[in-house]
């Protein structure tokens, strides 16, 4: 059965919001978080083409890698939202793509306990396509003090950004890391201090390639990866944290 047929079937056989499918992972936060992050109007379908890659267990609860692979997902994307079901603040990021959406997004997140991770993408017909994965964990990643702040020299490295543009058969992969404690605000006496906004623009046209909002579930010293088909390796990265620090760098075209 084709994807569209499945969507059509789901869309016709079920009324609009009651169309929320059963969670294959049986998470207690399923309905609550779907409604919280996707609203209760647009239909939601489970879609394995939204590949959510996480390890089966978290070796380090403060740094759990997530890769969203949309290389098999053919439809245009208007929004992408990711959350970690059982974290104190589940939201991880919301992403608005430019005209040519990223086919792969990767970053690390924190886990407070074993949990499902969700990524939903909104198609042009207003349907959310949702992929899930489960990660086992000893936990505590959200309430552990950041390693960065424990290092007396952290201010010297604060805001240091390393990056690269890696060519692909089609297009380019951007990868960059920024030294930032990303304090979740959940550690006693350490207020929320994290990067909220990430914008990637094409250098030539200044058109946004993507705009991203990060939340408390994002890991410290973020390492972000975005892959685009048919994109030149020249882009400008701009980020701002909740204290107003701005970071701007050229990606790609480096010697």
């Amino acid at each position, binding site marked *: 059965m084709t994807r569209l047929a499945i969507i059509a079937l789901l869309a016709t056989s079920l009324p609009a919001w009651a169309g929320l499918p059963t969670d294959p992972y049986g998470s207690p936060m399923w309905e609550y978080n779907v409604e919280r992050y996707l609203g209760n109007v647009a239909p939601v379908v489970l879609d394995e083409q939204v590949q959510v*890659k*996480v*390890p*089966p*267990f978290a*070796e*380090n609860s403060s*740094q759990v*890698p*997530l*890769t969203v692979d949309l290389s098999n997902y053919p439809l245009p994307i208007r929004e992408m939202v990711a959350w970690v079901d059982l974290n104190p603040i589940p939201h991880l990021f919301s992403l608005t793509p430019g005209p040519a959406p990223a086919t*792969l997004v*990767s970053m*690390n997140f924190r886990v407070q306990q074993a949990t499902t991770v969700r990524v939903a993408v909104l198609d042009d017909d207003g349907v959310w396509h949702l992929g899930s994965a489960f990660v086992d964990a*000893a936990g505590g990643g959200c309430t552990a003090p950041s390693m960065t702040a424990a290092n007396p020299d952290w201010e010297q490295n604060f805001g*240091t*950004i*390393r*990056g*690269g543009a*890696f060519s692909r058969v089609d297009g380019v*992969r951007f*990868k*960059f*890391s920024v030294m930032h404690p990303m304090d979740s605000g959940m550690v006693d006496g350490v207020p929320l201090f994290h990067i909220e906004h990430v914008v990637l623009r094409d250098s030539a046209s200044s058109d946004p390639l993507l705009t991203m909002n990060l939340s408390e579930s994002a890991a410290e010293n973020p*390492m972000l*990866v975005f892959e685009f088909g048919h994109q030149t390796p020249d882009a400008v990265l701009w980020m701002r944290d909740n204290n107003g620090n701005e970071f*701007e*760098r*050229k*990606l790609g075209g*480096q010697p």
Partner: protein
Amino acid sequence: MIRRAAIVMLCWLVGAPVVSAPELAYNLEAREIAKGTWVIEGSTGNFSRDNGGNIVNVAFVITGDGVVVIDSGPSRLYGEALRRLIESKTSEPITHVLITHHHPDHAFGSQAFDPDTLYMLDGAREMLEEEGDGFSDNMYRLVGDWMRGTEVVVPANTLEPGILDVGDHRFQLLELTGHTGSDLVVLDETTGVLFASDMVFYNRALTTPQSPGLMIWAGELARLEELPYRIVVPGHGPIVSDDSAFRQMADYLGWLYQTLTASASRGLSASEVMQQPIPHRFDAVEGAEYELIRTTTHLYPKYESSALVLLPE
């Protein structure tokens, strides 16, 4: 939850006795691999409630003037079983318990032994002091009741690298770093048995939580192989009397290094690295997929960082 509550209620209503857990016992068996030299071989699995953490090779040498024990096992219960086993083989006193490194499967049975007989390298002692409680929490989570009564014991005596003479045996003590930053390897010059500790894993994927680096480890491994050994007792996996454990270990370390380096140079994300297939030549290596996930977590960030350039403001 509700169902469990219902079962509890039911038991209570019909007056059924509460079922108690079966008595946990390790049933350790020792094998004599050289004169007076016994090894208790653990499984090559992960810590679990089924194996009680008995995934490690522990050894003892009856020297004629006291017993030298190499590692104390994963729990108090294990340590006590180990002591009884030694006492069943000899009436000589246990004079030395050498703890090779600070990982729980090697160091958590020490309560069963006289504190004055416990020895450890200085660096390893410091790490046990620092990280022991964290390991302990994790062990209780992973193997549960087998850990009952286990507390971290930091050995009182510092071990210096060099020669240790006990009874008829001369031991060469070496300090290395590849696995944890402070790893003891013991060569019994009298019998040619090399107690390689976790510097050598055989048919079991190596673990890297505190490794200073794969190539550092590989370099030290090459040094160890030069030693005049006859038999190799790896920290995990079967005992061998040729160089097969060294061969596999060197190959595996090299493959890990290549994989992480090549992945970083292609800009792969950590989750992509974790999902890479293990080459078939390592089919005999237990836990390779599991340990690749862990090793990527521990070591890949460094490889990633060096494949990226500092972006000027």
